Each structure stands twice: as structure tokens, then as C-alpha cells.
């Protein structure tokens, strides 16, 4: 058992898989000797050498194109897109090529690859380095989407992603890199498509993802003081989506709140709301409420960024208002 940061867990999770399987290789900008701009790959270059941990030019289309071509010819690449915002410069490779080629070829090719990226706000980096793009990826058929909220999940979900034979967009929450937790020794392997119920309550169900998970947990503690007892579900992956757990937990409380960092329109919570409004409509005791960043780009100033992203205070307020309506 050791205390690890979320950041350190990235490298540990990758190392675990690279030790096991020679076909796992890494590619990205500054991931080698420098250990990555978020220090997520520290030590891997020393352990696995320059042929397995390769620095690239600033050429995101080449990075992901290379990962795709390698995945279809026997490797299991882990590619890094430094900031999730940069998916926009290589979105064709992600959305049109990697996501579609298995289906188009009637299953002739597979894409066992992982694309890691620093996701989300909170670091005052401004609108082009702070986006939460989990919804960009969820929207495209053919991509799996994983967003861990803690160090243990980072390792287990990384292992599951690397071992998966489909392309996985693995979003690392920048705001959580420094968060710490106790991590068991030995191999950790998790499963994609399983949500975690982190807290069980009688009154309302909050569903959260990534950086919004600890905030939702903190909000649940405060709400408990107000007498509102909440379930908190950590979705962990958007595709596959653990609809079973969500429907069960909403069914048991009758109230759904989604807590989303992405801007409002077509955040993942919209999909969840539509599923629940169709499949669990008669279980609902009140409106579905989505707590999101407003539909704006993220501002740089700390004061403004803090207002934009759902805070513990805003979550408490929204839930409390709706439950007392």
C-alpha cells in the first residue's frame, strides 16, 4: 500500500501494462525524458527506453495516425494528446478514421489503442487549454470513453483500456493530477463500463464524472447536514455506459441530478437525462436537473473560472433548491 497521486498513478498504470506486453508502446510530445508536461509519464522513458516511449514533433495528426496504423498492424499504442483541447487539430483521425474503420471494414481491422489526454479546467489556463471534451468523444460511434476520478481507478481503468481491443479515449482530469490516495500494491485491473456507487442515499441520485466526483461527494456531505441524503454515482466511463446502475440508483431515489464539467449543451448529462426520461420515467418523483458549466468558453481569471465550473456550493444549492421545490 502506498500513497500515490493521480499523476503518479498514470505512470504506474502504464508501466504495469508495458511490463506485461512488449506490443504496448507510447507516443506523444515531450513524453520521453521530460516525463510529459503534466509529469504523467515520469520514469517510463528510463524503464522502457526510447523505442517504446517516443517523443514526436508537434503533429497531432501524425501522432494519432501513427497510433492507428500501428494498432491495425500488431501494436497496442498509447498516444498522448497533451491537452484535450488539441483533439480539435486531429479530430478527423479520431472521429472519422479510428472510430469508423472497424465498422466500415465489416470487422477486418481492430484498433487496440489508448489516447490519453489532459482534460478539463481549474488550472486557469483559459479557453483553449481547459475544455472538458468527454462529450466530443461520447458522441462519435466507435470510441470508448473513460474518465477516472481517483488514483486507483486510474491504474485499473488504464489496464482495462490498454487490454481492450477497441479505441479508448482516456481523459485525465488536470484538476485531479495532484490528488492523492492509498493504492494497493500489485497488479490492478479494472473493467470498463462499470459505474461506482460511492455513497448511497435515500433522497436523490447525483451522477458525476472525473473532477466532478469529489465535488459531488463533498456536496453530498453538506446536503446530508441539511437532511438531504444523496446517492453519488461515479460514472467512470461514458462508453460503455453503465445504464443499469444509473437506472437502479435513480429508481431507488426518484431524483436525478447530473454534475457535469462540460458546457451545458450536449454535455453527457443530456444523454443520461434522455435515457432516464424514457426508461425510468415512472420512477421519477421530480424534474431531472443538470448542474453544468454554463454554455460559455472557460475564462482564464481564477475568479471567473471558479464561478463557471460547478462548485461544491453550487451543487448543494441546486440540489437543495430542487428537492425543496
Amino acid at each position, binding site marked *: 500500500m502506498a500513497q500515490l497521486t493521480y499523476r503518479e498513478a498514470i505512470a504506474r498504470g502504464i508501466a504495469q501494462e508495458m511490463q506485461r506486453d512488449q506490443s504496448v*508502446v507510447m507516443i506523444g510530445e515531450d513524453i520521453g525524458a521530460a516525463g510529459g508536461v503534466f509529469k504523467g509519464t515520469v520514469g517510463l522513458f528510463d524503464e522502457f527506453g526510447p*523505442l517504446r516511449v*517516443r517523443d*514526436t*514533433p508537434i*503533429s*497531432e*495528426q*501524425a501522432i*494519432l*495516425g*501513427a*497510433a*492507428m*496504423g*500501428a*494498432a*491495425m*498492424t*500488431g*501494436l497496442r*499504442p498509447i498516444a498522448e494528446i497533451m491537452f484535450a483541447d488539441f483533439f480539435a487539430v486531429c479530430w*478527423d*483521425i479520431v472521429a*472519422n*478514421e479510428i472510430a469508423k*474503420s*472497424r*465498422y*466500415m*471494414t*465489416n*470487422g*477486418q*481491422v*481492430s484498433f*487496440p489503442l489508448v489516447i490519453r489526454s489532459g482534460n478539463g479546467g481549474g488550472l486557469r489556463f483559459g479557453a483553449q487549454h481547459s475544455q472538458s471534451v468527454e462529450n466530443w468523444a461520447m458522441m462519435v*460511434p*466507435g470510441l470508448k470513453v473513460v474518465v477516472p476520478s481517483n488514483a486507483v481507478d486510474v491504474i485499473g481503468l488504464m489496464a482495462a483500456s490498454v487490454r*481492450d*481491443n*477497441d479505441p479508448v479515449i482516456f481523459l485525465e482530469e488536470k484538476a485531479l493530477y495532484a490528488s492523492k490516495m492509498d493504492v494497493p500494491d500489485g497488479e490492478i485491473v479494472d473493467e470498463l*463500463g*462499470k459505474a461506482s456507487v460511492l455513497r448511497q442515499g435515500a433522497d436523490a441520485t447525483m451522477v458525476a464524472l472525473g473532477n466532478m466526483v469529489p465535488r459531488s461527494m463533498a456536496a453530498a456531505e453538506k446536503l446530508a447536514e441539511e437532511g438531504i441524503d444523496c446517492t453519488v454515482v461515479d460514472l467512470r466511463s461514458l*462508453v*460503455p*455506459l*453503465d*445504464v*443499469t446502475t444509473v437506472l437502479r440508483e435513480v429508481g431507488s431515489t426518484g431524483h436525478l441530478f447530473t454534475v457535469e464539467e462540460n458546457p451545458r449543451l450536449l454535455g453527457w448529462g443530456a444523454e443520461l437525462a434522455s435515457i432516464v426520461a424514457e426508461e425510468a420515467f415512472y420512477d421519477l418523483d421530480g424534474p431531472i436537473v443538470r448542474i453544468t458549466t454554463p454554455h460559455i468558453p472557460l475564462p482564464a481569471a481564477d475568479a471567473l473560472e471558479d464561478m463557471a465550473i460547478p462548485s461544491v456550493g453550487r451543487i448543494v444549492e441546486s440540489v437543495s433548491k430542487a428537492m425543496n421545490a
Partner: protein
Amino acid sequence: MVTSATAPAVFDLEARLDLYRVQLTLRKFEARAYDLFLENLVKGTSHLSLGQEAIAAGVAAAMRPDDWTFATYRGHAHTLARGVPMTPVMAELLGRTNGLMAGKGGSMHLTSVEHGVMGSYAIIGAHLPIACGAAWSAQYRGTDQVAVCFFGDGSVNIGAFHEALNFAAIWKLPVVFICENNLWMEYTRTSEVTAVANPAADRASAYGLESIIVDGNDAEAVYAVASAAIERARAGEGPSMIEATTYRHGGHSRADPGKYRPDSEVAEWLAKDPIPRYRAFLLEVGATEEQLVAIEEDVTAAVERAVDEAKAGDVPGEEYLMKDLWADGGSSWRN
């Protein structure tokens, strides 16, 4: 470097007759496919290589069976030249279950992994970095396979082209890029929107590569430069880019009669048609008229057989719709 049509003959007559047969197969297959469009049996779009067959045939002849091809939406020729049988290709155009991809990909996405045909890509430029990835895999695994990537002259102005060329060069990847310069994009002349005269060759130096132009209507000349490039790649000496000059006889795609091109230009290039030209050359170097006619009859019959077999395929049902999005064979996004 410009190689001419009189590049050293590395072919014996048998190989030459094969090269003729391949070119003719591409020609007759596509001509027949075009009929089927007109009969409205082939839906959607398609892009023919009529007039450009010497490139696909010459390059394929220079490849090892375990090498990889990455093609564009204009990929019938490149797919067939690697030895993919005609029936599944034709059936794919017809959208039948006996198609290469059971109709799910269509004309623009022909793929046959079994034959090293690693896909046809319909977004300009995307497959250049993907080909780099296959080459990286060969390099890492030490298999000495080579990736060959075809693209058009109009594709040299898209970002992915640039990223791929630099990437291939710095990692010394075993990849050969082949620009089929048919002078036109869709309805716009490439020279009107490109800052250099030779769209690929004049940019090779920007990636530390040699400038190579070849007559793309001469299959043997193409074979010669492609072999050299492939062998360099196989030997670990890195990528090459070849610009092969050619012309498409028809329009850009099914819907296009190609009328924006001056008649004189079309006539000039029809006169350089690689297939009659190679036929004449074969007679010069010892082939008999009978041999050639036999091949021609054979190919015609084979194409007809393929059409019949393709037409006999089933129309895909719902079970095809929801399969093979994921490696587990299914398409479910929920548990």
C-alpha cells in the same frame, strides 16, 4: 530524378504479360462497374482510375505480399492490383453480403487485410499518417514490411500530408508515398491552387527527401522507381515520395462528365493511354497478337463472371447493421 519509359527492363516476357493482364483487369473491371452505375445497380459514388492503371499495376508488382497498401476513395485499382479477387470488390460496389465488407464500406473504403490492402480512405490526407503508423509497427517489430501510400496531386495542400512526410522522415520509416498526379482535383486544376509546379516532387526537399518524378503511364517505369524506393525502405533507409504523372480519362466521380477539361488536353492524354501503349510495346518485345488476345478474352470473361457472382450476392439485412462496431462483434454502447 526523372526516370523515363526506357528504364532498364527487369521483366521477362511472362512478367510483362502479367503486368498487361493486371492493367487490363483494372481497366475492364472499372469500365464494367461504370456500366452498372448507369444501370443504377451501383448506388452512391465511385471514383475510377481509368487511364491511371499503370501506377497501381507497376507499384503492386514491386511489392511483397506482406507489404501494405493504403489507398484513397479512388482505390479500386490499387485493391485489385494487390490480388484481391474481382467478385468481392464488385459485390461491395453493389452493396451485397459477398462484398469485401458486406456493403458496409462501399466503393470508397475497399479493404482486404488478407491481401495487405489496409484500407481506402475518403478524407483527403488522413491515410498518410496512418501509413506511417503501419511502417512504425514494421520497424518496431523488425518485420521489414513496407507501407505504400497512394494519394492525388490535390492532396499535397492538406495539413496531414505535411505532418506525415516530416514524421516519416525523422523516424526513417519504411513507407513509400506515391502521388498520382493526374493534374486535377475534382473540378479545379491543381496548379491553380498549388504554390509549386510539381506538387509532390517540389516539396520533397522540405522533408529532406529526394525529388522523384516518373511517367505514371508506363508501368515498367513505375515499377522501377517503386522497387528502388521499396527496397530502400526495406533496408532501413527511410521513406521516399514518388510523383507519377498521369491523367484520369473520365470525370472525378460517377456524377461528373469531366467537361471542365479542355478537349485538347483530354485528347492528348487519351493518346498516351497506358494500356494500348503497353500492348504495342509488348508486341515489339516479342509477345504475339494471339497471346494478347487470349489475355484480353480471359480478362473479359473473368470480369463477366465477377459481375454475375457479385449480383448473386444477398442484400445485407439488419444483422449486418448492428455488428462489428466493437471488437466483440457487437455495437452496444450500454451494459
